[in-house]
């Protein structure tokens, strides 16, 4: 059922209909005013869903939880019994995703599913996830800069179903087979689009292509300059006010670094980690190749804009701007790169 219309006043009903065949995550405002993805029917109801604006957290944690049990080990009759954990592989729909975050998921896919090895935990979850993206019409706030990273406000990469705000309704388009299949559950809520609605959708797509309205940009020249500024003292100057708190990495849609530890109770646990934390790269010997804040910050920016381009052909940054909005020290990746010396 491609190319249909979902009236805004039927969204709650649609979410319930999806909820009959899938677990549904959607953006919900929490007690402290942060909009984040919550499991409907468990931590939130369809009435709490907020589809306007950019969620404060990306949907990253649904595919890559902050704390994840990998395996358990215990001694039985003098021998170790090691049991792998079973990842949460329920059918899931993530609803109300923004194009930047959808691209973020497709990049996480490249990291966890690509290369020589496949992360079986991520894969088990990913295969069962369907992404419903609501396109933006221009920047959502002053932090957005997706066009500078190769994205667009109505980009479709990583999405299974695209939705476009055409007034009192969403124009709905099943992009992938997975998306088309998911839409079958909404037969009762979807309608036929009018010519006017289709036209509005096309206009959104057109405006998106031309990247209208984005004041925050990173220039290609500046990014290219990074090729020769690795050894510059500039990075120490930029990082001077960094607190190494890791908030940027935790809220980034594509930051994927993690730690693995054997914790009490016989559990081997994977947890989010941050290249900004003090001992991230420290060898057991005490030698730390990235001990200084400038080196850590430089590593993060280069990972997002240079190493990833060399390795997977695309910037790892999606231009959501959350790291800029969140940084307690007012660090700004766009400004830092634009002014690179």
């Amino acid at each position, binding site marked *: 059922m491609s190319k249909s219309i979902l009236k805004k006043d039927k969204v709650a009903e649609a979410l319930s209909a999806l909820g009959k065949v899938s677990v549904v995550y959607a953006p919900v405002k929490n007690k402290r005013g942060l909009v984040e993805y919550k499991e409907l029917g468990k931590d939130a109801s369809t009435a709490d869903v907020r589809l306007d604006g950019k969620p404060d957290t990306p949907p990253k944690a649904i595919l890559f939880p902050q704390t994840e049990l*990998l*395996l358990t*080990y215990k001694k039985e009759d003098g*021998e*170790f019994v*090691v049991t*792998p954990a079973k990842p949460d592989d329920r059918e899931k729909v993530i609803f109300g995703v923004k194009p930047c975050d959808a691209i973020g998921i497709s990049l996480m896919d490249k*990291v*966890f599913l690509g*290369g*020589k*090895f*496949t*992360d*079986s*935990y991520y894969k088990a979850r990913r295969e069962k996830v369907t992404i419903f993206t609501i396109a933006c019409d221009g920047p959502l706030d002053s932090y957005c800069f997706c066009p500078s990273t190769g994205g667009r406000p109505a980009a479709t990469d990583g999405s299974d179903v695209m939705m476009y705000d055409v007034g009192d309704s969403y124009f709905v388009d099943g992009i992938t087979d997975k998306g088309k299949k998911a839409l079958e559950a909404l037969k009762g809520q979807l309608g036929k689009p009018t010519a006017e609605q289709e036209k509005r959708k096309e206009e959104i797509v057109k405006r998106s292509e031309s990247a209208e309205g984005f004041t925050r940009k990173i220039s290609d020249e500046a990014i290219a300059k990074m090729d020769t500024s*690795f050894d510059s003292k500039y990075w120490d100057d930029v990082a001077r006010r960094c607190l190494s708190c890791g908030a940027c990495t935790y809220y980034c849609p594509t930051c*994927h*670094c*993690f*730690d*693995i*530890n*054997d914790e009490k109770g*016989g559990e*081997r646990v*994977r947890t989010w*980690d941050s*290249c900004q934390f003090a001992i*991230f*790269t*420290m*060898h*057991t*010997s005490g030698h730390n*190749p*990235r001990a200084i804040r400038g*080196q850590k910050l430089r*590593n993060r920016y*280069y*990972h997002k804009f*240079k*190493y*990833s381009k*060399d*390795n997977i052909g695309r910037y790892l940054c999606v231009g959501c701007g959350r790291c800029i909005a969140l940084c307690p020290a007012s660090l700004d990746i766009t400004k830092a790169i634009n002014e690179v010396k």
Partner: protein
Amino acid sequence: MMSAKNDYLPQMAEITSITQETTGERAVKTFRIAFKDKSAKMDWKAGQTCMVSVFGKGESMFAISSSPTKGHIEFSVQRMGRVTERLHQMQVGDELGIRGPYGNGFPVEQWKGKNIYFIAGGVGMAPVRAVMNYVVDQKEDYGELHLLYGARSSRDLSYKAEIDALEQGGAIDVRRTIDVAEPGWLQIDNANPDSTKFDPSTRKFTGFVATIVTAMKCNPENALAVICGPPIMIKTCIGSLAKLGWKDEQIYTTLENKMKCGIGKCGRCNIGGVYVCVDGPVFTYAQVKKMLPDQ
């Protein structure tokens, strides 16, 4: 081949022998393991690594220090921290988890017909031992073999019996060097390696590894060098070889970094855009020169 499905799940193994290579605060022990499941097998290339699980303490990545031609898996462990301290307390029969092999290994096929200089410092001898034994076991395919092995003192040299046997067997021309003079170990001036005249049959020296590289005049003609050891040793040895006319592509080394996943996902072991766990640990110096190192 190891379980292809879950790359974080180790295969259970038990320690079948432990050899104390050196003693002291930073002692080295070599562990040989056998998989508990007798049908389990792991095929590896010299230079590859494996992630060893000490349940309750964590995991640590080690170079597999035995050649695949020997048919058993060995790794050498220096006592350093949480996982290695526990390993050093373990006995034959104790259980470990093993996952691997990881990394690219040495491109031994490309080395056929060449003379090889194996240059190792300290625990760097572990990966060198694997590839050196491999090459020795296929001796007809390779040219002249040399080993230069350096450590702080003669007590810190590992694999003593094995290297003595290789030397006596005539397969490899072995030279050893230590930092602080001991009787019978010829002192070479580190500041001026060419100043000391010595009998070419001398095999025991006192001097930095790079110093001996210069003094023994490693010949770049149809040759390659494998250098493993502390970063400063690698750097100075490459400097010495360059002065002797060696090209960057002729020099191989292994790099190391802190690792957790070992499979290129956790983002920790990168040097620039290169992940040491999956893209390395073996690199030519030409490749190393192109990297963006932090330190």
